[in-house]
């Protein structure tokens, strides 16, 4: 196995606790010189916590880190790790697109200077040229980063991280480098990483795409619920084994998309939303229906087109083919059908933080509340108070600026803004992210109640599959712009849905996953 190669990085017994939650439980990780180790795991399995701990961002409660045979002080991982050659490239590359490659590299480490402090441009350029060569970027140092493709950008970020360090003396840690890349670009990047490995660079990289693991990695470590589910060479595992290790339990991977089992209600109730053979940047001839009173949960990893589906239905983004109909009528631009509400994934975009709770809630109702003489302040206040009461928004003060409310209460305002209207359909894109469990439950219960009582149709786009399993009436799993599976009615089996979402595919990777999970844990949940 790795006997002939010395171990470059070795982590043993890593343990990290956030409040009562054990984010890492006695986890080990090792990568041999000149090899690639893939770090795998579902949302919140502890991958990001481990990476952040290595970067010195979290302090490990227990555990030892050894680099090139030299033990590091676990309390000073940030400096000692860097000195020993441990380098990180995060998912956000933190490059400035409008600056040249040279300027980007110099931002952190400075330029080559002459005796009076001026920049020696020719020497600087020469230095950067060598660095670009060493990571395999074929571009002039003077090229603006904006002109580079995504693969070259990642490589520039790698060059910046390595900062001239000899390949064999460093260890590169990449956090989901392929997450936001289309398939073809991801393959190119992997080929470059393999080339770097061949030059002696040990690489640890986090990913969700099982297919690419087989293209690039020599060994894998799989985390599940903060524990090590598997560590070892890849050669002994099949793709099914891997997805079972990631999701746990006896999933049945590879199940084809089953035709929906018609539930009594769906069959009887009218179709509110009909997405008919819609194609777009990410979607391929996607069709689905949401019925009156139904909460349809849609999940899928990043790049599956989940969020894009919401934007297209609401008219924020164009489509290349197909039609979206609400109550049988084709939908064009934003809110061209008045009965549709939308909560975007970015909560700040769905709110006016500087405006008051009342102004936020009633903005959608201004036309409805308007009389021939204009808006009556009393009626506006009453409408706001009604929403504040029914959603239990705290503080129950209509003039408080929304920006000072807690995340959960902000989301209640965002929802209240729509749900006070007689809506036909509401599109929710991750409505409960980074919200405490109690509030989450309140929100979803309110939404389900509206669906049951008023027949509101809900298109719920969600990365947190546990939530879907708890509250959805029907679940659709998307994969690379298509529907890959459908679960027609509750109760749903969490492992089964998880297995579908993480099924080996030509897809993609989870959305923001671990960060949100870490936030959840730090919240004390």
């Amino acid at each position, binding site marked *: 196995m790795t006997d002939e190669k010395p171990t470059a990085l070795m982590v043993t017994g890593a343990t990290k606790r956030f409040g009562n939650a054990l984010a890492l439980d006695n986890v080990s990780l090792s990568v041999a010189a000149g090899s690639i180790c893939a770090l795998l795991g579902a949302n919140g399995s502890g991958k990001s916590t481990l990476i952040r701990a290595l970067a010195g961002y979290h302090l490990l409660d227990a555990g030892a880190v050894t680099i090139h045979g030299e033990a590091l002080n676990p309390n000073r991982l940030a400096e000692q790790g860097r000195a020993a050659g441990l380098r990180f490239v995060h998912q956000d590359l933190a490059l400035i697109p409008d600056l040249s490659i040279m300027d980007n590299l110099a931002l952190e480490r400075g330029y080559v200077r002459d005796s009076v402090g001026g920049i020696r441009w020719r020497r600087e350029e020469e230095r950067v040229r060598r660095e670009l060569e060493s990571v395999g970027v074929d571009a002039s140092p003077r090229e603006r980063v904006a002109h580079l493709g995504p693969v070259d950008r990642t490589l520039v970020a790698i060059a910046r991280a390595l900062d001239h360090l000899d390949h064999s003396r460093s260890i590169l840690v990449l956090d989901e480098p392929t997450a936001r890349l289309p398939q073809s670009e991801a393959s190119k990047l992997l080929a470059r990483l393999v080339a770097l490995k061949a030059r002696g660079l040990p690489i640890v990289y986090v990913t969700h795409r099982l297919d690419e693991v087989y293209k690039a990695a020599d060994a894998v470590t799989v985390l599940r619920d903060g524990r090590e589910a598997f560590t070892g060479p890849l050669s002994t595992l099949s793709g099914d084994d891997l997805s079972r290790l990631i999701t746990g339990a006896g999933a049945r991977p590879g199940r084809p998309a089953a035709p929906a089992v018609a539930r009594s209600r769906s069959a009887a109730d009218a179709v509110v939303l009909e997405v008919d053979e819609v194609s777009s940047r990410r979607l391929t001839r996607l069709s689905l229906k949401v019925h009156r009173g139904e909460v349809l949960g849609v999940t899928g990893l990043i790049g599956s087109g989940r969020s894009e589906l919401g934007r297209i239905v609401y008219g924020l983004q164009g489509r290349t083919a197909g039609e979206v109909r609400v109550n049988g009528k084709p939908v064009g631009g*934003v809110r061209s059908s008045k009965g549709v509400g939308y909560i975007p994934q970015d909560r700040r975009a769905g709110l006016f933080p*500087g405006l008051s709770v009342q102004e936020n809630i009633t903005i959608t109702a201004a036309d409805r509340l308007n009389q021939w003489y204009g808006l009556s302040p009393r009626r506006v206040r009453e409408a706001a108070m009604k929403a504040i009461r029914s959603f239990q928004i705290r503080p129950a003060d209509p003039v408080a*600026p929304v920006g000072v409310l807690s995340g959960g209460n902000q989301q209640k305002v965002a929802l209240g803004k729509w749900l006070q209207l007689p809506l036909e359909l509401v599109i929710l894109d991750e409505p409960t992210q980074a919200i405490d469990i109690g509030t989450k439950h309140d929100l979803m219960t309110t939404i389900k109640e509206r669906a049951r009582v008023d027949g509101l149709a809900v298109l719920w786009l969600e990365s947190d599959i546990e939530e879907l399993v708890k509250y959805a009436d029907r679940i659709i799993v998307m994969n690379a712009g298509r529907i890959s599976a459908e679960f027609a009615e509750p109760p749903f089996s969490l492992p089964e849905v998880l297995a579908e979402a993480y099924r080996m595919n030509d897809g993609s990777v989870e959305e923001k996953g671990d960060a949100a999970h870490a936030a959840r844990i730090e919240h004390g949940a």
Partner: protein
Amino acid sequence: MPHASSMEREGRSGALRAGLGRAWSILYNYGLLIALILLAAAFSLLRPDTFPTLANAGSILTGSAALAMIAIGVTLPLIVQQFDLSAGFMATFASLLVVGLLSFNHAPVWLAILVALVASALVGLANGLLVAYARLNSLVVTLAAGSLLFGASEIYSGGATIYQDVPQLFLAVGQSRVAGIPLPFVYVIIVALIAWYILEYRPLGRYMYAIGGGEEGARLVGIKVDRLVVLVFVASAVMAGLGGVVQSARVGSANPSVLQTMLLPAFTAAFLGATSIRPGQYNIWGTVIAVYLVGLGTTGLFMLGASSYTEPVFDGAVLLVAIILAKLSARGRSRM
């Protein structure tokens, strides 16, 4: 019963605190108006013979009328987070145009005023289209528009004041009084009332504040942001044009170099106004009160014997104080 008495005491101190809170919120919301009254009182004490007279009050009310119109105009784009820097030159151009039409072309008064306002609306339309649809920065667009208007004003007037053959009717528009109140001030009040009503009591106004609160969010709730921004620039330009018309009707002539100097005081008033009435938000009555606060301050200082450089120094100082206060009150608002 010690318990009851402590409750009673608590109740009394609670009432006291509520009272103080109320007093504070009045001071907070109406500080500008209170400052205006205090300033008037101070000048009245210092110059009892000349300051507190009807004639002086009338001259302050009319003298600041054009500025008030321009200031109300620039407040509207500020609400949607845009700047109209062409407002001063717009007023100059409109004042020259209206007097020119009367003087050179002997046009009827109503037609001259109408043409000046329509011309202003067209300039505003161009500004608005460039900002909303071509997605250009409003600072740059309106700076350029202002320069173009300045050039157009110079060409149209030949760089000289236009004053010949201005009909009596036009002067009546700017110089008459109704129930002792000078007409230009009446116009300001009417225009402010309309703007205030639209901003506070029509969905249109609520949408404007929503755009100011977050353009993306406004689009997401279905507000036609681009169309509204265009409308706002048209309104701003028409207000500036109206300011120009009122000014020339008041003095009976038009000068190519006066009204553009009102741009800075107009913004001063808008920023200062945002600290009051509805602290943290641009609002019409705040702007109007601030205009008269600055007008009254300048007049008072002149009466105390200040030199001519006092006005720009006073304006600049008030502008700085205004934006600092605006920042503080916005912060106070988001902390509340």
